[in-house]
């Protein structure tokens, strides 16, 4: 076993990026994710990489677009208001089928909101985010270890499907420290980047673009993007289940609040309540099939989020009308992180 390190979630994501072979980072400071650019500004130059503190989030995502068009692994990170600014570039990258990793250590909103942990960016993240019909893969770590592992995974998904991939965390996951085992990069067979610009070098002209003006061209392009999403849905869904086998109440939660819910579920089990936890790890593609099975087995779901109800819509769609789905939300703000005891109360209330 590798040595256990003790690092912040944000640092773990930056370390995962480096392990994944990312040598190009473009970002702009914003709380609570600035540990990521701070770490990479220190480490990338040692690896002959490039770190640019861009003039804006808009510029940063477009630098990522440019680097990615060259076929290298590149990343940006930000927090909610900054991610809004990046949506233009994310849409262009999705349109041009460019890989790239975007880390969102989300904060509370709308507007300037605050810096507290929040899951209010769920819709924006999983439904495309920018203009035009597209989806990007979205991964939701719930620990420092997963910040590292899933950031590496994000680069593989990005290259495999030629798509931007978002790692969606919050200040709990980003700011807390835990033990990290810096596992080596996973091995995955990836397609060669034969589309990347390099200067013709005696070969065919390569064009990276999202403008399609020919008759029927854009429609076909949209269906191709959709087919990639369906393929991800088939092959790349990730989720975790805890005590779901005999559960008659299923709690659904992701990211930081899933950690709190995990303890609440364990406390409920100690009281003899048959409660389980279903945690989507990929928010897009959403693990519909696995959730459907677990949800129908339990017959009743309590969805818990740090917002006024977003993922709960996908939960309802996944399990269908036969399963009763309730929601408990703590919209973000100072002092609004629920405790395990508070969630246990909700579990008791919804337990039939």
């Amino acid at each position: 076993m590798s040595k256990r390190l003790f690092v912040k979630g944000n640092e773990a994501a930056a370390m995962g990026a480096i392990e994944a072979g990312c040598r190009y980072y473009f970002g702009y400071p914003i709380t609570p994710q600035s540990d990521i650019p701070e770490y990479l500004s220190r480490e990338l130059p040692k690896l002959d990489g490039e770190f640019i503190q861009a003039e804006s989030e808009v510029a940063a995502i477009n630098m990522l677009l440019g680097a990615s068009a060259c076929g290298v692994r590149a990343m940006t990170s930000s927090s909610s208001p900054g991610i809004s600014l990046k949506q233009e570039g994310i849409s262009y990258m999705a349109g041009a089928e460019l890989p790239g990793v975007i880390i969102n250590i989300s904060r509370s909103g709308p507007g300037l909101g605050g810096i507290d942990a929040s899951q209010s960016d769920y819709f924006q993240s999983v439904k495309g985010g920018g203009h035009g019909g597209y989806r990007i893969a979205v991964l939701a770590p719930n620990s420092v270890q997963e910040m590292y592992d899933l950031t590496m995974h994000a680069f593989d998904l990005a290259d495999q499907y030629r798509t931007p991939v978002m790692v969606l965390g919050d200040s709990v996951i980003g700011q807390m420290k835990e033990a990290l085992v810096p596992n080596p990069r996973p091995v995955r067979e990836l397609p060669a980047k034969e589309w990347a610009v390099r200067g013709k070098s005696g070969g065919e002209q390569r064009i990276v673009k999202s403008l399609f003006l020919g008759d029927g061209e854009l429609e076909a392009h949209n269906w191709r993007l959709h087919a990639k999403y369906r393929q991800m849905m088939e092959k790349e869904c990730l989720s975790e289940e805890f005590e779901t086998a005999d559960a008659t109440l299923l709690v659904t939660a992701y990211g930081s609040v899933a950690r709190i819910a995990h303890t609440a579920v364990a406390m409920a089990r100690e009281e003899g309540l048959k409660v389980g936890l279903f945690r989507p790890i990929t928010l897009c593609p959403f693990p519909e099939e696995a959730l459907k099975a677990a949800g129908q087995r339990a017959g009743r779901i309590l969805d818990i989020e740090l917002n006024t109800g977003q993922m709960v819509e996908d939960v309802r769609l996944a399990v269908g009308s036969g399963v009763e789905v309730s929601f408990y939300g703590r919209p973000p703000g100072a002092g609004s992180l629920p405790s395990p005891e508070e969630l246990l109360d909700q579990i008791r209330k919804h337990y039939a």
Partner: protein
Amino acid sequence: MQQVFTRPESLKDVQTHFCPGCQHGTVHRLVAEALDQFGVQQKTIGVASVGCSVFLYGYFDIDVVEAPHGRAPAVATGVKRARPDSFVFTYQGDGDLAAIGTAEIIHAANRGEDITVIFVNNTTYGMTGGQMAPTTLVGQKTSTSPYGRNKAKDGAPIKMAEVLAQLGGVAYSARVAVNSPKNVLQAKKVIKRAFQFQAEGKGFSFVEVLSSCPTNWGMAPLAANERIGEEMIPYFPLGVFKDDPIAQD
């Protein structure tokens, strides 16, 4: 028989689809000749912008990345940092570069990115139908300045070549026009000089090219060409505003 005029290697053998009298074709040719001259076609990555300029990849036989509106200098930054051995230029219009992309051009220039920016200034938004641009002359009527550009309300036209010359990272900044054979020849020299800086890794180079948009100006090509000399050049003086090979040292 001696051949005196050929198509540059860096251009494709295609028919132009630009409007009659449009000078994009002229500027394309000057850029392509410069690429040929430096022998860099095979390692050039062009960055197209939004507007009529987007069709770069249809005419140039080089690798091209298309940037969102105004963001070409940021995209080019990413390209050049990832592929420092490549030859990178952006090709942008005035709305793209001097309005929506002001932050990106200023900061790419100020960082001294080793790229070349070709800025085609025709004082209007061409592709969207002739709206007022940041470079529209005072009094000039456009589809969104039907009473003429009002300096008090719309500000004065922005002189990008002069603005950028002030920045520490800029090695070369110049303005040329393509309205006469003499000016075209001068433009060719200036564009070559700009690329020279990149070839030698000496920092950011910028060439503003005054050109016409007969369609949106509502003028015949010849009259449009005359307007460049009579109205644009007096306000946007031609010349080299910075030529500093040691800017990066």
